[in-house]
């Protein structure tokens, strides 16, 4: 296999990481909603933590996007 096609396959494989990170982001919001419906009074105070969890989960997906971009355009 030549290097160019290997790069493209690698970039495609990196997209799996973005997909799995979407599971993480969905999980963050699902659990928040689950907890918020049980105790709506406490939900508003926890929105900051919700977005911290969201940011942490999302970053890992974005990193796989960076890997794909580096493979396609830089490496």
């Amino acid at each position, binding site marked *: 296999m030549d290097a160019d096609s290997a790069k493209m396959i690698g970039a495609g494989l990196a997209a799996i990481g973005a997909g799995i990170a979407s599971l993480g982001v969905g999980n963050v919001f699902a659990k928040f909603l689950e907890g918020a419906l049980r105790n709506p009074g406490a939900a508003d105070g926890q929105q900051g933590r919700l977005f*911290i969890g969201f940011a942490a989960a999302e970053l890992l997906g*974005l990193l796989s*996007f960076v890997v794909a971009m580096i493979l396609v355009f830089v490496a």
Partner: protein
Amino acid sequence: MAAEGKVDPMHQFTIEPMFGTDLWQVAGYNIAFTNSALWMAITTGVLFIFVLGGMKRQVIPGRWQMAVESMTGFVDNLLSANIGPAGKKYVPYVFSLFMFILFANFLGLLPLGLVGIHPFTFTSHFSATAVLAALSFSIVLIVGFWRHGFHFFSLFVPHGTPVWLMWLIPAIELVSFLVRPFSLALRLFVAMMAGHLLLEVLSGFVITGFNAGGIGPVVGVLSFLLMVGICALEILVAGIQAYVFALLTSLYINDAENLH
């Protein structure tokens, strides 16, 4: 047209010198006034006008003053919730940061291409977001060392660390502290870049779909509908990313103010 009408998704991120300033140089470095700098200036101008309109200090606020006050109140709440009373003095910085990123993201999404002006989202460039992140991180370092001196290093040893883990935990904490500016800058830059790339790729589908015969227009229409949805999502992402940037900045400043 079908073959050569291909949309290059990366073209929107090219930085070009404007108004014939291509050759301006200082000490061998090119300092041309680029489209990135132009949109930064526009963002600053719009933000300035927005805040100026709310500075009338009427007892009964009008709509504009209400809008500005709700934004400052939002940042104020964010800081007092995360830092406590000591957070008051960071309101100007975090407010400017939040509004600058928010306005930059929104201005970059404006459909001005219809009238021939192409908005440039400078937050989709690592160099721009890295400067913002470095600013936040240096504020954390300066405040931390100013207030706590070398006691600031106790940040790397959380309360209740067992003695036999003393070799490992500080190393992990140090690494997690040092990647903060990178994660901060990378998140904003990649989220904005990925969104704009996605919109451009979908617009490419629409154009090639309508140019192709057979089932092509069906694909084009579906892509267009998806694109409208993604645009709405991008507006949400633009707001969330600005909020997350401000939120994480305030958390990091909290570490510097109060240790943990």
